[in-house]
C-alpha cells in the first residue's frame, strides 16, 4: 500500500516535471526573431510537414465526404429531407470531422516523422554538436518544425473540408440525384462563416499547436537509442490522438455548448 502511494506521488511529480520541461521547451523554441536563414529552414519544413501530408489528407477527405453523402442521404430520405444533405455534410465536416480527422492523420503522418527525425539527430549527437558549434538547436532545428506544423495543419484542414464537401456533392448530387441547387443553397443558408468555419479553424489551430508540440518535444526529450526512438514515435501518435480528441470535446463545449 505504501509502495502504491509512493509510486503515485512519484508519477505525479514526473508528470508535472515533464509538463514544465515541455512548457519551457515550447517557450524557448518559439520565441525569437526569425532570420533570413530561419525563413529558409521554415520553408523546407513546410515542404516536409505540409506539402507531403497533402496527399493523405485530400484522399481521406474525399472518402469521408463521400461516406457522409451516402449515410446522410439514406437517413434524410426517410424524412423526405434529402435537400438538407448539403447542410449536413458541410456542418459535420466544418465543425468536427475536418479539424479532428485531419489532426489525427497529421499526427500519424507528420508528427511521428518529426519525432523520429529529431530523435535520430539527437541519437547521432547532431544536436549536441550543433550546441558545441555555438548554435542553439531549439532555434535551428525545433523552431522551424514547430512553426511549419503550426501553419500547415490549418491549411490542410481547409483542404480536407473542401474535398469533403466535394465528395458529398459527388455522391449526393451526381450519384443519388439530390437537386444540385438545394445542395448548395441549403448549405449556404445554414453555414455561418464565423460560427462554423471560423470555429472549425480555431479548433484546428489548437490541434496544430498540440500535435506539433508533442511531436517535437517527444523527439527532443527521448532517450537516444533505437528503442527510445521507436517508443517516442509511438508516444507521439498516442498522446497527440488523445490530446486532440479530449481537446475537441472541451472546445466544442465552449463553442457550441449552452455555456459557451
Amino acid at each position, binding site marked *: 500500500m505504501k509502495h502504491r502511494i509512493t509510486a503515485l506521488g512519484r508519477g505525479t511529480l514526473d508528470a508535472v516535471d515533464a509538463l514544465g520541461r515541455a512548457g519551457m521547451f515550447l517557450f524557448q523554441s518559439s520565441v525569437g526573431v526569425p532570420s533570413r536563414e530561419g525563413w529558409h529552414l521554415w*520553408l*523546407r519544413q*513546410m*515542404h516536409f510537414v*505540409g*506539402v507531403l501530408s*497533402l496527399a493523405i489528407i485530400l484522399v481521406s477527405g474525399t472518402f469521408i465526404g463521400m461516406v457522409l453523402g451516402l449515410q446522410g442521404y439514406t437517413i434524410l430520405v426517410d*424524412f*423526405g*429531407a434529402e*435537400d*438538407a444533405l448539403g447542410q449536413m455534410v*458541410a456542418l459535420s465536416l*466544418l465543425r468536427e470531422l475536418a479539424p479532428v480527422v485531419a489532426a489525427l492523420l497529421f499526427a500519424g503522418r507528420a508528427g511521428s516523422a518529426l519525432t523520429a527525425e529529431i530523435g535520430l539527430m539527437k541519437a547521432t549527437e547532431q544536436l549536441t554538436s550543433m550546441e558545441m558549434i555555438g548554435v542553439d538547436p531549439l532555434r535551428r532545428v525545433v523552431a522551424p518544425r514547430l512553426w511549419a506544423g503550426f501553419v*500547415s495543419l*490549418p*491549411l*490542410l484542414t*481547409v*483542404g480536407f*473540408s*473542401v474535398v469533403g*464537401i466535394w465528395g458529398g456533392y459527388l455522391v449526393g448530387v451526381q450519384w443519388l440525384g439530390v437537386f444540385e441547387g438545394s445542395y*448548395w*443553397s441549403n*448549405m*449556404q*443558408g*445554414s*453555414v*455561418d*462563416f464565423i460560427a*462554423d*468555419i471560423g470555429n472549425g479553424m480555431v479548433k484546428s489551430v489548437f490541434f496544430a499547436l498540440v500535435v506539433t508540440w508533442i511531436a517535437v518535444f517527444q523527439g527532443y526529450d527521448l532517450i537516444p537509442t533505437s528503442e527510445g526512438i521507436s517508443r517516442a514515435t509511438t508516444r507521439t501518435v498516442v498522446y497527440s490522438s488523445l490530446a486532440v480528441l479530449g481537446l475537441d470535446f472541451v472546445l466544442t463545449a465552449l463553442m457550441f455548448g449552452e455555456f459557451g
Partner: protein
Amino acid sequence: MKRSKMMEFGVGLFMLAGIVGLVFLGLRVSGLGTGVSGETFTLHANFANIGGLKPRSKVTLAGVRVGQVSDISLDPEWFDARVTMTLDASLEGKLPSDTAAAILTAGLLGEQYVGLSVGGAPEMLADGDVIRNTQQALVLEELIQQFVSNMARE
C-alpha cells in the same frame, strides 16, 4: 539549387491552395457575398410569434433572396418580437407600404425565413420604416391543439 526552387514553389502553391480553399468555403459554402452585398437598407416588422427565426435567416421576395434578418429583439411596449431586416438597396423606395411579411418554413421541418409579398398602395417604404402587415410563424403545437379542440367540439 534547382531542387530547393522546386520546393519553394511547392510550398507557395500549398499556401495558395489553402487560401483559395478558405475563399471557396467562405463564398460557396457559407454563402458570404451571395446574399446581400454592398448597399443595403433596413426595415422593421413586428410579429406576435417568430417561431424558430434566427438572425441571418434569409428574407425573400417572390422566392428570391433579397436580404437577411439582422436583429431580433422583444418590443417591451407590445410584447411582441421586433425583427430587423437588412435588404438590398435596389429595393429601397420601391416596396409599397402595405407590403406583407410572413414567417414561412422551408419544407415541413426546414429552417424558417421571412417571405415578403407586395401590396398595391401608392406610398413606398423608406429606410427604417415598419411593415405593419405581418403574419406570425406557424407553430406546430398550436396547430395540433386547434385541430384537436375542433374535433372535440364536433
